[in-house]
Each structure stands twice: as C-alpha cells, then as structure tokens.
C-alpha cells in the first residue's frame, strides 16, 4: 500500500504519456506505420499472440535461449571464480584483467557464435548470452570470496580453522550477496545476449527476429508489442532473481532496505 502511494507520481506520468499519445495519434490521425497508438500496440499483441508474427511461441524460444545462456554462464563464472580464489595472490592480477576484458563489446561475437553453432540453433544465442553472463558472475563472486573482513579471518585463524572450513563458513556466505548482485545484472544480460544474437540472424520464431521483421515491414505496432514482451520478460527474470535474493540473504542490508535495490 505504501509502495503504491509512493509511486503515484510515476503511475500518473505513465497514464499521462499513454493517454496523451493515444489522443494525439487519434486527433492528428497519425498513420499506424508512422507511429502506432498504445491501443493499436495492445491489439497487435493480441492479434499476433499465436498467429501472424506468433509472439508467444517466439517468446518461449527466446526465453529458453536466455535461461540456457544464464545457466551456462553462471556455472562457468562460478567455477572460474572459485579456481582463482584458491590463489589469493593472483586475484589482484585477474580482477583488473577481467574487468578490462569485460569492456569488449561481446555482442561482436554473435556472428561467430552463429557460424559455430548454427544460425538457426538456439545454442548460438545461448553462447552469446553465456559469455555476457560469465563476467559479472565471475567478477562479483571472486570479489565476494576474497573481500573478507580481515578480523573475521583472524578469528578463524585463532580457531586454527582449516582452509576448507574458512571457505565453507566464511568465504562462501560472504560471497553470496555479491553473487546475487551479479545474478541480477546477469538476468538482463542473458536476455540481451539472446535478442542481439537473434538480430544478427536466426529462426523466425524468436522475439529478436519478430522485432526486426515487423520493423522492416513497417508494422511498428507489432514491433512495439514484441518489445513490450521482451521488456516484461526482462523484468520477470529480474524479479525472480530479487525473490531468490530475499529468500537466501534476508539478513543483508540490500534486502533489509537500508539501500535502494
């Protein structure tokens, strides 16, 4: 209730923009291939849900690609982070390097992935998504495993705790919030990887191809409705990650609400 109240100005703006667009398009009689009215986008979504541009089947394929890439990228990111954290001295070399390599526009690999795994295969999109996901997961988890309070390490040392015990009871719980921060970024990135991979070519029944195909046919109403679905999918995946976070680390300041999400 309180959240609703706080967001009243935002909701009003949304209503004003949608209403204003609708009125403007109707009053000025703007053609749909120039700018579609919000109501036209909604109609286009319903009309093309299962036939025509088949947005729903396309969304299923794209989501599969994104989730597959998310799973693969997260798994490799975790493995590499744990491997590097075994060598504490290498961290100061590996982290800046990984951050710099992360500055490469990884989507440039989309054409190679398309050629390697087949332009029509979902695996080519998963590969792009996975390489986008890998870096934030790896970098965040590595930070979490190594940025441990030095007093906590001294405490474990005072107990004569083995390295395995330190990892299990201190480093891994410490890395959990970092991992979930990475995961939240990664959900969006996995969808970007899948969609941009599709922009560089792919099956017709994918959201990326629907966006490109409808736009080149000047069916902007359908383009917008497909983009709406992409946006909703992104928010859905993000909210899922937030839910996981709330369940796993209820004690953390970011979940307790001391800082904005």
């Amino acid at each position, binding site marked *: 209730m309180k959240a609703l109240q706080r967001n009243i*100005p935002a909701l009003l703006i949304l209503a004003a923009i949608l209403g204003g667009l609708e009125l403007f398009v109707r009053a000025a009689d703007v053609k749909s291939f120039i700018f579609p009215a919000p109501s036209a986008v909604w109609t286009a979504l319903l009309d093309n849900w299962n036939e025509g541009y088949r947005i729903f089947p396309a969304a299923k394929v794209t989501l599969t690609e994104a989730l597959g890439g998310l799973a693969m990228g997260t798994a490799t990111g975790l493995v590499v982070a744990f491997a590097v954290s075994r060598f504490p001295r290498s961290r100061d070399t590996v982290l800046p390097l990984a951050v*710099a390599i992360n500055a490469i526009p990884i*989507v440039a690999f989309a054409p190679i992935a398309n050629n390697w795994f087949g332009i029509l295969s979902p695996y080519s999109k998963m590969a792009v998504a996975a390489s986008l996901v890998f870096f934030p997961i790896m970098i965040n988890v590595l930070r979490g495993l190594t940025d441990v309070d030095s007093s906590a390490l001294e405490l474990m040392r005072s107990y004569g705790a083995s390295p395995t015990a330190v990892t299990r009871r201190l480093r891994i719980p410490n890395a959990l919030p970092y991992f979930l921060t990475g995961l939240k970024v990664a959900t969006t990135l996995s969808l970007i990887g899948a969609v*941009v991979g599709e922009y*560089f070519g792919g099956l017709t029944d994918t*959201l990326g191809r629907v*966006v490109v195909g409808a*736009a080149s046919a000047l069916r902007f109403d359908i383009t917008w409705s497909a*983009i709406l679905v992409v946006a909703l999918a992104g*928010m859905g995946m993000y909210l899922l990650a937030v839910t996981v976070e709330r369940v796993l680390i209820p004690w953390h300041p970011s979940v307790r609400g001391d800082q904005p999400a």
Partner: protein
Amino acid sequence: MTVQTARPRRTILRRIVSFLVFIVAVLVVWEAFKLLAGDPIFVDGEKIWDPPLTVWLATDVNLPHTWVIWNRTLAPVTSGAKESLGGYLIGQAVFTMRESLTGFAIGGVLGIALATLFVHFRLIERAFVPYVVASQTIPIIALAPLIMFFTGHNVSSVIIIATYLCFFPVTIAMLRGLRSPDPRALELMRSYAASRRAVLWKVRFPASLPYLFTALKITATASIVGAIVGEGPGGMQEGLGRALMFFSQQYAISPEKLWASIFVTAGLGILFYLAVVGAEQWVLRGRPQAAFG
C-alpha cells in the same frame, strides 16, 4: 579495505604486463588447440603436422590460424581493391567510434543534467526515477531496430541508440553520487548558509565523481554495443557493425575477415574503456580509491 592513497607506478606496470601476458596466453592456447585438434598444416604443399584429434571448433574455417588472420589484414579487402582489410577495418572503427563517442557524450551530459534535476525536485524524481531504475532490468537495446527503421538508416539514428544506452546508467549513478555526501558535510554547508548552487558545486558534484566514472566505464562499452547493433542488424552501409554483419555472410569462404573485424571491435572497446580509466585516474588523482576498476 582495499583503499590506497597513491597508486604506485609499479601497479600500473604490472597491469600492462599482465594484459600482454593474457594476450600471448590467448594466442598460445588458440594455436595449441589447433595443433591438438585442428586441420593438418601444410607448408609449400607438404603436410608437416597432422593433429591427433579432430574437433569441429578447431578447423581452419571455424578457428583460422592466428597468422592467417594477421596476414589477411594486410591483404586487400576485396580482390583488386587498393585498401587493405586492416586499413578498411580501422576506417570503419573510426566511423563507429565517432558515433559511439557522440552518443556517449550526449547521454552522459543528459544523465548528469537529469540527475541534478532529480536531486533538487522531489516530485519530478518520484515521477521519473522508477522508470530509470526499471530500465536497468529490461534489455532496452531491443529498441535499436525500431529506432533504425523509424528514424531512417543514418548516423543520427545510431547516435540516438548509443545515447539512450548511456543515458540510463549515468542518471542512476549520478543520482546516487549526488546523494552520497556525508550528511554532516551538508549540515556544515547549511551552517555557512551556503546557496543550493554552492552546495552543488562544492559538495555534491565532487562527491559524485567516483560514481560518475563507474557509470562511464560501463557506458563506454554500451555506446559501442549500441552503435554496432544499430549499424549491423539496423542496416547501415558503414561501420564495424556492418563489417561484422557483412563478413559474417562470407564466413564459409574467408572466416579471417570476420575474425579480424571481431579483434578490431574488441580492441576498440578496450581502448575506449582504458581512455575512461585514464580520465578517472587524472580527475580523481590524490583521492583514496579502490584498488581496482
């Protein structure tokens, strides 16, 4: 607590060395993989090496020898052309860089201006910030083809894409940064009866700079991604995006062209990132800073 007041020159040197070592390592792994599982190597028509394994990823089509890619960049871009592939790609990189730099600059300035506005007007903030935050959870790059087809296949469309990809992260980071000063610092300014403008210039802006640079490092890459997606799938006739798209279609005949384009794109991304890091080092010199980017 990885805070240092001055970064020793040695650290920078070590980073450069580690980066070079990384590049060499990639080349070594690349060629080792080919020796292990690639196609046989011929010198003057004579087979000198036959790899023990065969993996489809390591064939000469899917993973050309690094020297083949290098030699190809020196050869003409198409048979009979005067320009070499390398020269052509650098030209396209400059073209793309111009677009992404423009988008980076406009997006950055817009983001800073908007965040400043939000910090001063609570109602505007509550009306718009939820959307800026939500933009981080959705793949806004999906809008790229729409913009290309809507505003035409030209440079300004690509700049628009790059701009909005930069705009959102800068706004959010800047808003956090402008809010980051110690409340006691703001109270101190209040005790001086300082004007809003003075508070902004003396306290809020300086405090926001580290946040701003964190965002700029992200948007350096984002602006290039935006430009590439606008150029390639968006149907431009110039730029790295177009080169990637075009050479992807020639992959079966000459995969080296696509690989060379990818390397140039990767290099451009890292160069842009390093330029922002350099600017950050200079602007924030003397301040305590995190030990890594």
